[in-house]
C-alpha cells in the first residue's frame, strides 16, 4: 500500500504585488513566493520545514491547509485537493499557528475544547478519551478552568496544541511552535510532539527558526529559500552540505597560545578566552575531552550555527556552482 500522505508536484504560488510608484501610479509586479516545489511526506513522518523569513514556508503551509489556492502544480493531502475541499480536509488536519491563538481569550480553557467537540462533531466517548489523554500529557489539568487570557505563553501554546488534536487529525501542522517559550516549556512541547508521533503515528510538519527543535524532533528537514526547495534530507546532511561550523568557546585558567586540536581551529583569542570553529557534524564531546586533557579548562560553551548562516552559505554555493557550470559551457563552445 502506498503510504504517501502529502504530495506536492511542481507547486507554485505567484502573488501580484502592486506598488505605489507615485501619485495614483502603480506598478504591478509578480512575486513567486513558491517556485515549483515537489516533495512527498509519508504517513507518520516528522518533518522540519525551515528557511529564513519570507522564504515561502507559510505560503506552503497555507496551501497545504487549503487557505490559499496554488497558482500551478498538483497538491494532495490524504488524497484531497485542499483548496477545493477545504471543509472536508479540515476534519483530518490539525493546525497550530505559533503566534495566533485559536483559544477563546475571555473564557476558561475547557470552553474552547467544548466548542471543538461540537464544531468537529467528535463522538462523546472519543472526545472524553482524547481530552483526558491530552490534559495528562500536556499538563493542563489545573488550567482547564482558568480564562485563557490569564495563561502564560507556554501554557497557552500547550492549550492550543491540545485544541488542534481533539479531533484526532492525521497530520499536525505547527508554525513556530516554540517561539518565545522558555526552556522548560520548549522541552515539554518537544517531548509531547515526539510522543504524539511515535505513539499515535501522527504525521507532523513543523516550521521553526530553532535548530534545536529540528535536532530533537525531526528525522528529516526541508530547507526552502526564495520559494525553492534547497535541501531535503537528514539534518546531519544539511550541515555537511552547508559546511556549517559550530563554535566552541573555552575559558582557560590563563592566557595561552592558540589551542591546537584539529579539525577545530582557533578563530579568535581574547585573553584567556578562545573561540574554536569545528565542523557541525563532529562530536563536541570528543573535542572537549581532548582539550580538557591537555589544557587547564575553566569553563566552556558550544554555539550552534544558525539556520540563516547555513542557508546563506548553501545559497552562495549554489550560485557559484551555477556560475561555474555557465563558464564551463562557454569554454566548451
Amino acid at each position, binding site marked *: 500500500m502506498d503510504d504517501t500522505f502529502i504530495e506536492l508536484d511542481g507547486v507554485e504560488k505567484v502573488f501580484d504585488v502592486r506598488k505605489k510608484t507615485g501619485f495614483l501610479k502603480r506598478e504591478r509586479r509578480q512575486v513567486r513566493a513558491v517556485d515549483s516545489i515537489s516533495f512527498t511526506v509519508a504517513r507518520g513522518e516528522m518533518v522540519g520545514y525551515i528557511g529564513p523569513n519570507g522564504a515561502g514556508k507559510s505560503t506552503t503551509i497555507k496551501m497545504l*491547509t*487549503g487557505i490559499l489556492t496554488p497558482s500551478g502544480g498538483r497538491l494532495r493531502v490524504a488524497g484531497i485537493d485542499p483548496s477545493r475541499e*477545504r471543509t472536508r480536509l479540515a476534519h483530518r488536519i490539525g493546525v497550530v499557528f505559533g503566534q*495566533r491563538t485559536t483559544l477563546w481569550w475571555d473564557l476558561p480553557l475547557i470552553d474552547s475544547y467544548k466548542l471543538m467537540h461540537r*464544531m468537529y462533531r467528535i463522538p462523546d466517548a472519543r472526545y472524553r478519551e482524547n481530552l483526558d489523554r491530552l490534559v495528562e500529557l500536556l499538563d493542563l489539568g489545573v488550567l482547564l478552568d482558568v480564562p485563557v487570557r490569564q495563561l502564560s505563553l507556554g501554557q497557552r501554546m500547550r492549550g492550543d496544541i491540545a485544541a488542534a488534536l481533539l479531533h484526532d487529525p492525521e497530520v499536525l501542522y505547527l508554525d513556530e511552535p516554540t517561539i518565545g517559550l522558555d526552556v522548560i516549556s520548549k522541552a515539554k512541547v518537544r517531548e509531547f510532539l515526539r510522543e504524539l508521533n511515535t505513539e499515535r503515528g501522527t504525521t507532523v510538519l513543523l516550521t521553526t527558526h530553532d535548530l534545536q527543535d529540528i535536532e530533537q524532533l525531526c528525522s528529516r528537514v526541508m530547507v526552502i529559500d526564495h520559494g525553492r526547495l534547497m535541501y531535503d534530507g537528514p539534518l546531519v546532511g544539511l550541515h555537511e552540505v552547508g559546511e556549517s561550523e559550530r563554535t566552541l568557546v573555552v575559558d582557560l585558567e590563563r592566557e595561552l597560545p592558540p589551542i591546537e586540536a584539529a579539525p577545530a581551529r582557533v578563530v579568535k583569542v581574547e585573553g584567556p578566552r578562545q573561540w574554536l570553529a569545528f565542523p557541525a557534524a563532529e562530536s563536541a564531546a570528543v573535542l572537549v575531552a581532548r582539550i580538557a586533557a591537555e589544557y587547564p579548562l575553566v569553563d566552556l560553551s558550544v554555539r550552534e550555527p544558525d539556520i540563516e548562516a547555513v542557508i546563506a552559505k548553501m545559497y552562495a554555493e549554489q550560485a557559484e556552482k551555477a556560475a561555474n557550470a555557465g563558464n564551463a559551457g562557454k569554454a566548451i563552445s
Partner: protein
Amino acid sequence: MGERHALAEGLRAYGLIAGMWVRSSMTYRTSFVVTVFGNLVVTALDFVAILLMFSQVDSLGGWSLPEVAFLYGLSATAFGIADLVLGSMDVLGGRIRDGSFDTLLVRPAPVLAQVGADHFALRRLGRITQGAVVLGYALVSVDVDWSAPKVLLVPVMVVSGAAIFSALFVAGAAFQIFAQDAAEVQNAFTYGGTTLLQYPPTVFGKDLVRGVTFMLPLAFVNWVSAAYVLGRPYPIGLPSWAAFMSPLVAAACCALAGLAWRAGLRSYRSTGS
C-alpha cells in the same frame, strides 16, 4: 454537499460561535450592562432629534410626525435585526490584516457563518428594541385605513428590510477582502443608509432618491411600501405594485451579496496577505 446542507451547517456554526461570544461578554458583567444601557440611550437620542425637529415644524417634507415615526421604526427595526445578526462583519478587515482570518479557514464550517457570528453582541438588541417601540407608536397613531394587504405589508417590510441590510453587510465584507481596510466604506452604506431612510424621501434631492432606489435598493426597505401604506405618492413614479416587490428585491440582493462574498473569498485564497 448540497446548498441546504451547507445552510444548516452554517446556521449551526453560527449558533455555536455566537454562543461563545455571548458567554465571553458575560465575563465582564458590569461592562455588558453598561453597554446595553448606553446603546439604548444613544439610539433613543437618535429619535429624540426627530422629536425636537417636530417641536419646531408641523411636517417634514409634507410628512407628519407619526408618518416619519413609521419610516423611522421600520428602518431602525430592520437595520437592528441585520446589525444584530451580521453587524460585526466590519471587524473582518482587521482579522485579515492581523492574519487571524486564516484560523477561520481551517475550521470545518462555512466561513461566512464564522465571520457573521464574529464578535456577536447581544447589546445590539438595544437598537431593535428602540426601533420596535417607535414602530409601535407609529402604528397606533398613524392615520391609516388598515386593509389586509397593508397589515401584511408591515412584517414583510421588516423582514425584507433586514435582508436588504444583511446583504449590504455581506457585500461590504466581500469588499473588505479586496480592499483590506474598507470598514468605513461599508459603514457609510449601512449605518448611513438607515439614517437616510429615517426621513421622508421628499426631503432629499431626486437624484439621491433615484440612487437608493435603483442602485442600492434601500428605498425598498421602507420608502416604497410605506408610501403605499400611508397612501402617499411613490418617491419616483413607480407603478403601484412596486410596494409588494420588497421580498423579491431582498432575495435578489442576498443572491448578489452571496456571489460577491464567494468572489471575495476566492480572491483571498489566491492572493493571500
